[in-house]
């Protein structure tokens, strides 16, 4: 209920609600953007744009259509994809070392306090290759179920059930 009220306040244009939303969602949004952009400076720029968009478009968010987090997620992915397709970006990016969230997590040495980094690293180590792909496509890149099924050559229903198994393992680690 608190969350709903906060979002309603944001939609009314209350800057304090915006600040709170930023605290709650900026870090995970930054993670999504970074997983696509893979450049810290540019990802920061995109993060700013994304939150300005969240502010401007907040009145169009409709809770019947899905979670607020999902709405934010979509804005972040779209902005990131627009960015990497833009001309200036293509020219500036030659050294993309990390491929997806798995590589990023493997290479990362410092984590926020709230993150169980040891647990996460173990999770990544044990994660089946198919799970890595499913989570990368569906969560980080925002593919639809159908696009994922075509990309991985896997029936639609299997995408659904397999992915659930992958996320259940994650939940065991991060939810205390």
């Amino acid at each position: 209920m608190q969350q709903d009220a906060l979002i309603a306040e944001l939609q009314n244009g209350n800057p304090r609600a915006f600040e709170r939303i930023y605290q709650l969602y900026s870090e995970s949004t930054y993670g999504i953007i970074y997983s696509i952009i893979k450049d810290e400076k540019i990802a920061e720029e995109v993060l700013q744009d994304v939150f300005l968009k969240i502010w401007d478009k907040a009145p169009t968010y409709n809770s019947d259509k899905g979670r607020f987090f999902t709405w934010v997620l979509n804005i972040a992915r779209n902005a990131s994809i627009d960015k990497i397709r833009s001309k200036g970006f293509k020219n500036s990016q030659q050294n993309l070392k990390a491929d997806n969230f798995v590589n990023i997590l493997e290479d990362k040495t410092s984590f926020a306090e709230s993150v169980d980094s040891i647990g996460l690293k173990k999770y990544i180590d044990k994660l089946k290759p198919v799970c890595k792909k499913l989570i990368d496509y569906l969560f980080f890149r925002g593919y639809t179920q159908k696009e994922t099924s075509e990309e991985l050559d896997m029936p639609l229903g299997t995408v659904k059930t397999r992915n659930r198994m992958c996320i259940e393992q994650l939940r065991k680690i991060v939810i205390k």
Partner: protein
Amino acid sequence: MDIQEYINSGILELYVYGALSEKESREVTRELKKYPEVKAEVEEIEEALMMLSKAVAPNNAEHLITTIKEKLTNVSPTPTRKIPVKRINWVTYSGWAASLLLLIGLFLFFNRTNNLRNQLSSARAQNAQMEQQIADAREDATNAKELLAVIRDKNVTRVQLAGQEVAPNAYASVYWNATENKAYIDAAELPTPPRGKVYQVWSLTMQPLTPTSIGLLEDFETDDNKVFSLENVNQSEAFGITLEPEGGSETPTMEQLYVLGTVAAP
């Protein structure tokens, strides 16, 4: 509906990802409002995903909030403005008259800004509504276009399935694209299945008669166009649809065969 089964189907994860169609998402939202278990599950999935993406972020980005806040437009609570009041050295009466005038003026001024602000916010809401309607209409049109493209494809064989003993008036069509291994089932003329039952589609090969399940017509009631897309890799010679307990069966329940039709020889 079996809640546990619904949760285990994996649809809620796709919901949080935003990987479902708008229609499917709305349906999940309805279930979420009805069943607290579903809501709790969605919240936990969301929390886990937030943790995962947080871990991917290079840093916490807290310092950016000041820059972002400076760029915000349409911030609603306007700062109180001080209106300079000139002290007029006049007779006391005219002083009172002046402040009365000022008061009236102020009142009118605030009234007007208030009206403007209301108009602005209702225009904003209307805009949002329009955007929504346009988006919905666009999605409907795309769906219709996709369907048409499927039916027009030259590789598509249409198989008519006629009603059988249990449902003589039932009727369905299969649009089978053997090159893409896709079968589209148009089930608009099938009766709504009773609670706890689901239609299952079978591909049949003759001599010996072998039925192979190619899928379920899930969420039948809520599917508006009643067209379902299934994978079919079989060399089908006929198609049949039976009514089965939720989750489907290994072999078809022949007493509950609703419609059946053979593929015309090429």
